[in-house]
């Protein structure tokens, strides 16, 4: 689907802040509220705007369990379906948050979430590495998130500017 500049602008605004009132979005791109609402609806129907989610910093929530690991997976692609078949076999697991086909020394990058390192380790050894096409796995646990999707999580940012200037 080919989009025009205003449609793309609407997506960019919502990508940054999904809770931006459509009334304000409309003003920013120079459309009426009705037009903007219709465009957003269309983008949702086309699954270009797939879902509105929150960026959460769970580390601030006391005793919240949870670990994330990025796993480099080498696989043997299959005749006819390439990597799609094995990717699907991997993403069907609920523990799997993301699956990407990568260029470089391994094939799939898999992000797995679990309550503990043990749980993730068990998943990798018992479910992931036992799949037929999987040749090898390398697991990297995420120790600390500094910046996620363009947002710096721990920031003491304050406006340093003087209140009124010429």
């Amino acid at each position: 689907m080919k989009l025009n500049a205003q449609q793309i602008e609407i997506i960019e605004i919502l990508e940054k802040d999904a809770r931006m009132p459509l009334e304000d979005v409309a003003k920013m791109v120079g459309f009426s509220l009705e037009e903007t609402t219709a465009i957003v609806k269309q983008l949702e129907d086309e699954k270009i705007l797939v879902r509105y989610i929150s960026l959460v910093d769970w580390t601030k929530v006391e005793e919240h369990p949870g670990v994330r690991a990025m796993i480099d997976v080498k696989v043997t692609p299959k005749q006819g379906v390439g990597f799609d078949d094995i990717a699907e076999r991997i993403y069907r697991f609920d523990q799997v948050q993301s699956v990407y086909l990568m260029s470089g020394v391994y094939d799939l990058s898999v992000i797995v979430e679990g309550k503990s390192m043990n749980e993730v380790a068990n998943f990798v050894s018992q479910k992931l590495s036992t799949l037929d096409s999987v040749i090898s796995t390398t697991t990297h646990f995420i120790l600390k998130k500094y910046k996620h999707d363009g947002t710096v999580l721990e920031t003491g940012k304050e406006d340093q500017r003087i209140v009124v200037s010429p």
Partner: protein
Amino acid sequence: MTLTKKSYVSKMVNELKPSGIRRFFDLAASMEGVISLGVGEPDFVTPWHVREEAIRSLEMGYTAYTPNAGLFELRQEIAHYMEKEFDVSYHPQNEIIVTIGASSAIDIAMRTILDPGDEVIVVEPCFVSYVPMVELAGGKAITVQATKEHDFKILPSQLEAVVSERTKAIMLCSPNNPTGTMLNKAELKAIAQFAIEHDVLIIADEIYAELAYDEDYTSMAAIPGMHERTILVSGFSKGFAMTGWRLGFVCAPKPIAEAMLKIFQYQLMCASTMSQYAAIEALKNGRSQVEKMVKSYRRRRNFIVQSFNDMGLTCHNPGGAFYAFPSIKSTGLTSQEFAAQLLQQEKVAVVPGDVFGESGEGHIRCSYAASLEQLQEALKRIERFIQNFK
């Protein structure tokens, strides 16, 4: 000690009006929880790759003076950049001076061209320091008023009405602080024609040139016949979000640039060395960051202008810079009253338009170099405030 007599201060400085912004700043700074739309600088921090380059220059020990006109490499980059972006051509050897912000560029320009009593036509509303800088250089500032009726664009006929034998130059700023108005090619041409006919210079403050939202920016120096009579002032503060680095530059034909350099070398020696290294990086690799900032400002411009018009404070669509300049005449207040009461009642700081010149009266300058959340909240408060006057 009360020995300091007022007479120790020169007559000229005694007569200099204090900046109207200063008074407002003191008031706003003393209050808590103020949302400020009074800030005349970007809300972006200088992009990291630029900051890093300054750090690297310190690590390398580049802490000495540079040539008076600035690092040659920086002047080369400026020449290249101005040619590529704005289609104006200046020789890095003798037509470009790196200055301490655009302000020092304007200052040396005035002092270079003015003999006592020479006149400069200053188009208002404008940046608060133009008139004092003319006066401090011994000149006489003749103000003309761009008005809301013409979207704050000055007409050649208005210049015609005040031009005299003593007119040496016209001081022009586009995109404009405080109105945001940007002159298009045809409008610049008309003013250029006037300048050529009357043989006057134009000091073009083009510090906001990068921040043009609806059409490509045209530099006064790019208008045929104007290269030789334009002193083009620009810098890194606004477009590259580098206000605190204090780095500007001025481009002018060789005889004028060389004369300006005479003053600059005695006055300031050279601009800050680490800022200059940072600026080289900004020009070489900063374009994509500038474009990102422009995109963000454009959205906010659209948002604030539409919001003002929706609430009944009519506001022309400013083509550049990051200021909206709505009319507050419908409230029956003067711009000073409006700004003071708004600050007291709703804790929103704006700058009363009259500090920028006579025709700014009845307007307020609202900088949209603030986060969207701040703009949304500030506009809510302003809308609530003006209900008092309906």
